């Protein structure tokens, strides 16, 4: 039995939808990467790659960190490193922690609701396969 596609025969529609979904989560993911302590830009990129499925274009994270700092969610400090050049480390501020908590709660409750909604869809798909 063939599964009918809900979307038009435009192959990249689901990809674009997924990209939008991920884009909306980048800010939360960047904040979450700093929950345990300070990190510098490249460490944040590597952390997100290893801990989530968010493979960012490398240049993307820095303007986001810059904006979050301007909004008072993050602070930064330059630390001399063995590499021979200083690195800019980011930490969460109290406001950043509070925002991340709110985002995490909203995300969890939203995804729980949707998972419940989609349970029957996935079960039906398993039966079809």
């Amino acid at each position, binding site marked *: 039995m063939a599964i009918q596609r809900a979307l038009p025969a435009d192959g990249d529609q689901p990809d674009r939808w997924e990209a939008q979904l991920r884009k909306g989560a980048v800010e939360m993911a960047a904040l979450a990467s700093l929950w345990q302590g300070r990190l510098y830009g*490249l460490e944040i990129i590597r952390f997100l790659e290893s801990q989530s499925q968010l*493979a960012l274009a490398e240049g993307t994270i*820095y303007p986001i960190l810059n904006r979050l700092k301007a909004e008072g969610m993050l602070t930064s400090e330059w630390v001399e490193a063995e590499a021979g050049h200083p690195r800019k480390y980011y930490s969460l501020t109290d406001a950043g922690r509070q925002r991340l908590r709110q985002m995490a709660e909203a995300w969890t409750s939203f995804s729980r609701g949707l998972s419940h909604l989609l349970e029957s869809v996935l079960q039906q798909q398993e039966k079809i396969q």
Partner: protein
Amino acid sequence: MTTETQIDNYLTALRLHLGPLTIAEREEIVLEIGAHIRDSAEQTGASIETVLARLGPAEELAAQYRDGLLIRQASRSLSPLVLLRATLRLATKGLSGIVVFFLAIFGYLMGGGLVLTGLIKPIFPANTGVWFNDDQLVSSGTLFPAPAPPAHEILGMWYIPIALMLGSLTLLLTTFLIRRSLRISQQLQSKL
């Protein structure tokens, strides 16, 4: 070209395109991206070309910082010029940006027009108002010549407070909607 020259060229281009930011901000960004390039090459063993390709063109990276600044300033501003400039930039990024831009233009024209006609009414009382013919709206605003009978103006001097109030409300709503759209757009602009 040596590795250091490649890095210098990239950072010089980045600095050049970061124009509108303050010197301190610019230099901090250049220092941070320079550290990223060196760390990334060192830690992954990738060539400088690969690291720079992963970062994307300096102009595009700088544009993300500039857009962030423009939208940040605009999302706190009340100036229609600053807000329109930011929505114009948003319009270059996709369909939703174009919709916001045209809604902004429409809102400002509509609100500004209403306020203007409210102010003009005391000067040209016979030419400004809302005209009906029976139950049908004929026209509204400031018109030269005014619609001829049997169309008649229904608001009289009440037109002034009503137009000023509706116009101000439209301008406020437009400002609020633009600022809200700019804030949302900031969270969705990141490239994956």
